[in-house]
């Protein structure tokens, strides 16, 4: 609007009020010279306190980045802050997201997938720094389905060609155990249940290591194993007072969710400990069962390496030696037996095979041996065989009548 002033450069009086983003400016429409400028800040607070507005909160950054990407980058930062990750993680996660956004498969994906992608980037960053973050945690925070998450995660790792290390079990044990609310006496927790954190942590680590050695961890979700190990460690540190507490009660007291497979992991771990206990002379006479073995977990863990070696024969070694000595089957087995003979005479329990539980259980259905078919693919096809798949005209009429009837029945409930 012409306000009577003139442009200092060219002298024209055609001045236009044209804002550059959020800054109001008076611009000469002939030469483009900026005559006057308004203030850049938009709130009185900022102006009053003379604080500058950071670049990330100004409008400058948003020029090249689309709105959904902006929102998701903000989400990445928020997620990192919620999880209390070190500040360097934020930048790495942001860079992964930006890289992923360049990929056509991701850029055209639905919003749901992009939301999940935020979690994937944070997860990959944590894994690379050995920070123990489980997918379950991320899915809970994102309100996302684990199936959608897993699909996006696998796709992202493949497309970016990333090398994501495995979840660090030791770190996971430490962080998970620390979340159990048992280290200070509070109202629902009786004094006899309170436990020292370091003792529980060290014993849980030993139990998880034992589980790993005896094939209880491979192929399974790591968290239920750790829950079971924590429970056993806690029980064994003061068995007289704690044997009456069940796994479910324990998790409720500790304010931790009980994962469903933890109960069966607990049984498997107890079975391993019982096998080990049968190798110690002074424990064999006690005739332990799954409840009483808890009292001796301390001793068993102290000698765990030797006990595992004694309690379990390597099932695979036996099989291999049998393969090798086809001509003289007796000899090698006898040699093996001789080393065990000593133990066998003194210890009545023969060593069990050290195998994952899925191999120890007998298969539920017998797998039928595939019959060798002599099909050539070019045989004649008899008409009668094909006829059996076609409806007779009567059947067709009946079917059509039934279809019409069901259509009519469906349309009746809607009153005009």
């Amino acid at each position: 609007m012409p306000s009577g002033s003139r442009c200092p450069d060219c002298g024209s009086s055609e001045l236009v009020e044209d804002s550059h983003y959020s800054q109001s400016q008076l611009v000469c429409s002939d030469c483009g010279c900026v005559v006057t400028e308004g203030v850049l800040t938009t709130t009185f607070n900022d102006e009053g306190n003379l604080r500058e507005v950071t670049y990330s909160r100004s409008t400058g950054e948003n020029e090249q980045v689309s709105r959904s990407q902006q929102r998701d980058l903000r989400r990445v930062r928020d997620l990192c802050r919620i999880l209390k990750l070190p500040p360097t993680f934020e930048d790495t996660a942001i860079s992964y997201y930006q890289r992923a956004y360049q990929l056509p498969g991701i850029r055209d994906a639905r919003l749901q997938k992009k939301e999940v992608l935020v979690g994937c980037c944070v997860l990959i960053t944590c894994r690379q720094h050995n920070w123990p973050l489980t997918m379950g945690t991320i899915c809970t925070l994102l309100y996302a389905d684990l199936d959608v998450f897993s699909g996006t995660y696998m796709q992202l790792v493949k497309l970016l060609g990333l090398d994501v290390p495995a979840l660090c079990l030791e770190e996971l044990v430490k962080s998970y155990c620390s979340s159990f609310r048992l280290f200070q006496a509070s109202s629902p927790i009786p004094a006899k249940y309170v436990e020292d954190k370091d003792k529980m942590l060290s014993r849980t680590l030993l139990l998880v290591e034992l589980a790993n050695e005896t094939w209880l961890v491979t192929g399974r979700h790591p968290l239920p194993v750790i829950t079971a190990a924590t429970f056993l460690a806690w029980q064994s540190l003061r068995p007289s007072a704690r044997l009456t507490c069940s796994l479910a009660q324990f998790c409720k007291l500790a304010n931790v969710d009980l994962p469903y497979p933890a109960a069966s992991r607990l049984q498997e771990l107890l079975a391993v400990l019982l096998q080990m206990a049968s190798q110690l002379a002074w424990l064999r006479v006690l005739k332990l069962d799954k409840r009483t073995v808890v009292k001796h977990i301390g001793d068993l863990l102290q000698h765990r390496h030797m006990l595992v070696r004694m309690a379990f024969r390597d099932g695979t070694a036996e099989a291999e030696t049998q393969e090798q000595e086809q001509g003289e089957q007796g000899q090698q087995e006898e040699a093996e037996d001789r080393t065990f003979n000593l133990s066998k005479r003194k210890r009545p329990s023969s060593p069990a095979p050290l195998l994952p539980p899925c191999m120890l259980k007998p298969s539920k259905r017998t797998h039928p041996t595939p019959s060798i078919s002599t099909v050539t693919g070019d045989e004649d096809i008899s008409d009668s065989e094909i006829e059996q798949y076609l409806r007779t005209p009567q059947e067709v009429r009946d079917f059509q009548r039934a279809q019409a009837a069901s259509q009519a029945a469906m349309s009746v409930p809607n009153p005009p």
Partner: protein
Amino acid sequence: MDQNNSLPPYAQGLASPQGAMTPGIPIFSPMMPYGTGLTPQPIQNTNSLSILEEQQRQQQQQQQQQQQQSVATAAASVQQSTSQQSTQGASGQTPQLFHSQTLTTAPLPGTTPLYPSPMTPMTPITPATPASESSGIVPQLQNIVSTVNLGCKLDLKTIALRARNAEYNPKRFAAVIMRIREPRTTALIFSSGKMVCTGAKSEEQSRLAARKYARVVQKLGFPAKFLDFKIQNMVGSCDVKFPIRLEGLVLTHQQFSSYEPELFPGLIYRMIKPRIVLLIFVSGKVVLTGAKVRAEIYEAFENIYPILKGFRKTT
């Protein structure tokens, strides 16, 4: 094809898995019948044929040769090969496969004579793959997916109406799902005339099943043809019978493997050559998929078996 028809010489060059060479045990007897050992025989068609089929061919040829030769030169062979028969030892089962006559043939260049006896020195041979004894395990085919073009537009409503074994729910999926009992398969028939056939256990069965579906469509009144039958995917499975440390495998073969126990209990191994995806489980069961021909599945398993054996004893 005058091949050295006895045991592939590379197997002798190995530290024999049978332990010390005990007299009286024919060293080659277990190897050939199992068949999946890699033969270092000159090249020929190892790319196109599966190893199994090639060895079966060889065996058939040996048998034919034996039958021809044994009658004519029985006497001569006894004289010639007495020296070598003495070292052969008790070889009751071998005459079916290897005739003593063949032992006197001149060895091919690059291959050793058969017996590690003092008379015949063993020349070292690099085996085709390191530590390669045949695994003795053959993957079984579980599923074949194939496609064929019937070459004409189809009216799916008519097909669903007039065929007994068809289901059609256009709101859920835009194809008719048809099943036949023999071979037990399922087909997806689209209105464009293209068809997908799944569930067969061999290539020939898949082809036969696809032809039966085409016949059904023909009998329903459409001018169906049988164009461009192609096998798109083959799935096989087998069991190595020992537990596998998946965490160790993912560490050493990081660029090929993906193991996420939080998502899936098995390890996903993407082999580059041949381009096959293997699902490896802790129990030792292996599922192989992504093959277009049977040989790829056998080759992939032969490639993975030595790797898996490396993880056998890690306790």
